């Protein structure tokens, strides 16, 4: 196999990572929709997608390792493969949080819908845009997109604590709210972690493009 085959295969792998990113985002998005609409069927679909997500993770990892073993890539090729290997872990975690949120939806079917009041949807919009931008930066190698990541991640952290405080006050108002609010606090935590994973993707994309390491804390 020649080097140009390595480059072709890296392009294919990149496309698969982008497809995996789309799936992870869809799982998260559908889980939030199902949370708001109590759509059990959609929640089940999210749960079912975990198999597809697992397949993406395993196949991309296997092919990236094979390329490293066969070609001993260097410089940008090596950095891109290293980024892909880390990125699929973050994308896998993102999709799994979608699955976790969907699992909570199933527990909430008979309860009073509170999520819309609790700003989860608003928080999700911010998290979603951060994830989309991190994946787009990977796709286009355009790192200017990463400039405000730290600020945006801080906002997401603040939203999480705001939801926490809001939930606690609902719980204090009426103990019947405790179960659902405890779940809402968990969902806010998951979304906050999703923001962190988007930042980690941003860090790796920065490494891929420049060779330098940054920390988005």
């Amino acid at each position, binding site marked *: 196999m*020649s*080097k*140009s085959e*390595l*480059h072709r295969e890296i392009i294919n792998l990149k496309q698969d990572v982008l497809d995996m990113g789309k799936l992870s985002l869809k799982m998260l998005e559908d889980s939030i929709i199902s949370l708001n609409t109590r759509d059990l069927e959609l929640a089940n679909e999210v749960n079912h997608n975990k198999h597809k997500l697992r397949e993406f993770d395993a196949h991309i990892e296997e092919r990236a390792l094979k390329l490293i073993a066969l*070609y*001993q*890539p*260097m*410089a*940008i*090729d*090596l*950095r891109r493969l290293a980024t892909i290997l880390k990125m699929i872990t973050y994308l896998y975690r993102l999709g799994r949080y979608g699955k976790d949120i969907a699992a909570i939806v199933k527990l909430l079917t008979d309860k009073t819908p509170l999520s819309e009041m609790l700003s989860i949807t608003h928080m999700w919009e911010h998290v979603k845009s951060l994830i989309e931008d991190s994946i787009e930066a990977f796709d286009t190698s355009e790192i200017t997109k990463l400039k405000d990541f730290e600020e945006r991640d801080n906002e997401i952290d603040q939203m999480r604590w705001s939801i926490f405080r809001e939930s606690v006050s609902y719980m204090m108002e009426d103990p019947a709210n405790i179960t659902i609010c405890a779940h809402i606090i968990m969902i806010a935590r998951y979304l906050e972690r999703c923001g962190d994973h988007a930042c980690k993707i941003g860090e790796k994309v920065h490494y891929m493009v*420049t*060779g*330098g390491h940054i920390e988005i804390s």
Partner: protein
Amino acid sequence: MNLKVKTKLVKEISESQNADIEKIKAGNDIIIECKNLNLWYDDNHALKDINMIVKKNKVTAIIGPSGCGKSTLIRSFNRMNDVIEGCKTEGTVEFRGRNIYGNRISAMKIRKYIGMIFQKPNPFPMSIYDNILYGPKIHRMRDKKKLETILKNSLEMAVLWDEVKDRLKDSALGLSGGQQQRLCIARTLAIEPEVILMDEPTSSLDPIATAKIEELINDLKEKYTVIIVTHNMQQAARISDYTAFMYLGELIEFGETEQIFENPQERLTENYITGRFG
């Protein structure tokens, strides 16, 4: 990338190349330094303004596509080009601060301090014993005990002693390719050089013999300075501390090996090591 674009890139980088060298120069452990080294084979300008340093007790690799001048450069370090007709050198190559191209320096003496290993093992058609002691003997060493110590030490250092100790009087030509190359290394070590130049020392060897030589190079740097020309970039990445990338007779990039292979600063280096040309 067409030739015009490549040539333009070569010109653009000369300033940043000098900055890299200044950074590495920090410290007083430089053993060889080329300053504005130019070399011509008749009209062919084979080395163009090379400025480079070699650090003591380190392995420096020289990489680049065929015909880029890497073998010419390594041969300049011990004046092996002197024997080529029509070859003209300008600029200086300083070994421990003295220009080896100076008027009163003998090439013979230089080669005692700066030994060389070639692509194809070239043992002399004589016994293993005589191969190793050929150098010390022409440097007029007669003490038999001393010679035997040199013999054993050199072969041990080249990790060959255990394989040949019972057949030292056998012809060196009966050894395998890998053993012959290690014998040539032992023969170079016998004259106690300070620098060992290696011009693609493993390109004619099988993977096991190659691994042995690579391990040996790693051990050698405790006592010696090694400069190696190699076509195998993974080998350069594995064994060297510093790497120089050459193209069309110019030194394009010189730096710590890790940086060159993980994050080269020059587009030409990046394109070469990722297999986009060459």
